[in-house]
């Protein structure tokens, strides 16, 4: 089912190093998040991205800063990081603090940063795709060549809202790239019980460009998303990409994963860890040395520790903040 990963490195060394570094950043940030959540420092839900790092980083690297990202599925933090939101702002938001990206109003499921063109995530899975179409429309109306990339999980593709977004994007040939992160599970429901051969087939009736790639290979995702973005930028319309990944972590922290086959799970952890595989590939191809990687890890660990410090030191919002940002006031014409 999974094709063997190619052992070549098909990007330049700098890019390759950045890929590994960014995947490690996600991984280390999330490991820390898990600890902090376990210690009760982080409220609410925490969904981690283990196994998706290659997909997130490949996609992020394919985008320009000016391209929008509308996050879907439940693997969120890796995408926020890949879109360039600073770690301290993300961590402070997970903590629900005033210096968080959303001033503590949103939390893990809602990190948004319009300045960095991160639309954020609709916590109702599958409600981010039509907004992504709207973001692309706005860019088109404004005459830019920026595109909108939007992700969704295998589970989310069952929602009609996803299909409507395909209809709308195709209708005006808008620059939208739909990335389906098929990690084989919607919580406990296996994607293999869905009828399509590849979930990217959902683009076929619309005559969209579609592709299914091994999403645990950062370079493959980078290539496929780059191609799709280029088409979109050139006015060739939307694409649908299935990024086949594995969820190497529970659905959310606390999920006992009773529904998973243990042997298969172990095999996947062994074979499909995007970071481990890429690390080995870079070592084999002499792009990096063990020592360089250790330095990289150490640096990131420092960054992450700083992010945690930042979050911890950021104050809880004052109670009155609960009533802010509901409306922009005065309303038009009010009080004149």
């Amino acid at each position, binding site marked *: 089912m999974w094709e063997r990963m190619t052992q070549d490195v098909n990007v330049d060394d700098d890019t390759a190093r950045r890929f590994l570094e960014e995947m490690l950043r996600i991984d280390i940030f999330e490991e820390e998040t898990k600890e902090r959540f376990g210690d009760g420092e982080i409220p609410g839900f925490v969904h981690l991205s283990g196994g998706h790092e290659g997909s997130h980083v490949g996609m992020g690297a394919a985008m320009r800063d000016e391209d929008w990202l509308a996050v879907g599925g439940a693997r969120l933090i890796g995408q926020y990081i890949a879109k360039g939101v600073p770690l301290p702002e993300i961590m402070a938001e997970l903590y629900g603090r005033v210096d968080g990206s959303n001033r503590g109003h949103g939390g893990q499921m809602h990190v948004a940063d319009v300045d960095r063109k991160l639309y954020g995530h609709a916590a109702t899975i599958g409600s981010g795709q039509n907004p992504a179409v709207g973001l692309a429309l706005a860019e088109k109306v404004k005459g830019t060549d920026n595109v909108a990339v939007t992700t969704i999980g295998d589970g989310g593709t069952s929602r009609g809202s996803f299909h409507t977004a395909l209809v709308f994007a195709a*209708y005006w040939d808008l620059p939208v790239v739909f990335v389906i992160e098929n990690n084989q599970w919607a919580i406990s429901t296996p994607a293999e019980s869905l009828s399509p051969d590849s979930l990217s087939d959902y683009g076929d009736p619309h005559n969209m460009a579609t592709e299914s790639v091994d999403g645990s290979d950062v370079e493959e995702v980078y290539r496929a998303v780059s191609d799709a973005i280029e088409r979109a930028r050139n006015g060739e319309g939307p694409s649908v990409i299935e990024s086949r990944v594995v969820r190497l972590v529970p659905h959310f922290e606390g999920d006992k994963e009773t529904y998973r086959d243990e042997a298969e799970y172990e095999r996947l952890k062994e074979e499909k860890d995007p970071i481990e595989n890429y690390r080995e590939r870079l070592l084999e191809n002499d792009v990096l040395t063990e020592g360089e990687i250790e330095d990289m890890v150490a640096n990131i660990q420092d960054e992450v520790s700083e992010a945690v410090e930042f979050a911890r030191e950021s104050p809880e919002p004052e109670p009155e903040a609960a009533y802010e940002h509901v409306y922009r006031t005065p309303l038009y014409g009010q009080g004149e």
Partner: protein
Amino acid sequence: MTREITYVEAIAEALDEELSRDDDVILFGEDVEEFGGNFGETEGLYEKHGRDRVRNTPLSEIGIAGMALGAAVGGIRPVAELQFADFAATAGDEVFNQIPKQPYVSGGRLEAPLTIFAPSGAGIGAGAQHSQSVHSWLGNVPGWVVVTATTPYDAKGLFKSAIRDDNPVFFLPHKMLSETKGEVPDEEYTLPLGEAVVEEDGEDVTVVATQLMFHRAKEAAAEVDADVEIVNPRTFAPLDTETIAESVRKTGRLVVVDETVERYGTQGYIANEIVENEFFSFDAPPKTIGVKDVPIPLSPPLEQEVLPSADRIAAGIESLF
């Protein structure tokens, strides 16, 4: 100077003027091009402003509302039509969970200056799924500015403000008023959002009413033996309770009429807000009147039965004396 135009013409003028005024305004929805909208509200706009600014969409309210949200966040000012207000539910997640909450959830970093408009209300035999008044649903979801239109004057002035406002606004004309006529200034004007207006002065009883119910309340006022003050809330969220309270402090009596379903509709909330804060101003209990707790039936006599009539309003007023 003023002239008489219809309510639908007022809506079309508002759209036309805002499309002309601001390049960031774009209009989309089902059948807004040649067809001109179900009630004629977008007639001529596509021909004048072109297909980039006035766009027919495929048939999906989720698509329309979701695209409007993204477009607004993306920096333009979309005005999106749903063919019937009932279809707010058809785009339920967008309308209840996404649009009104995104600005808040982002801690104010994200703006959604969009307007959705949709004709509401009963009276044309359109049945249970094309006749509802939904401002109770929308007003119960913080984040929406919910605006209704009662006259051509209101329709134009409020719609223009809705389009210019930086919040998500849901604008609700009433389909039974489409062909009613009224005075509208020749000059450009806007009307403030979030402010109720005392439409008729009176001393004895305050009647709160909007849209079709406003007109029926006026008829009722003419029938009864009392000096009726009529307050038109215009905006249902946020609600200008102060204007209503001030009126009740004067009259001592309150009737709230609205076309939403009575149970958890607008009426009880409005009445209770005033009662709770102005209890000792009341000379009689408050009276609420709305659609009884039934869907809107097709049969015209049944439809008229469930829709508050001028007589029912008059009886409600009289019951307070």
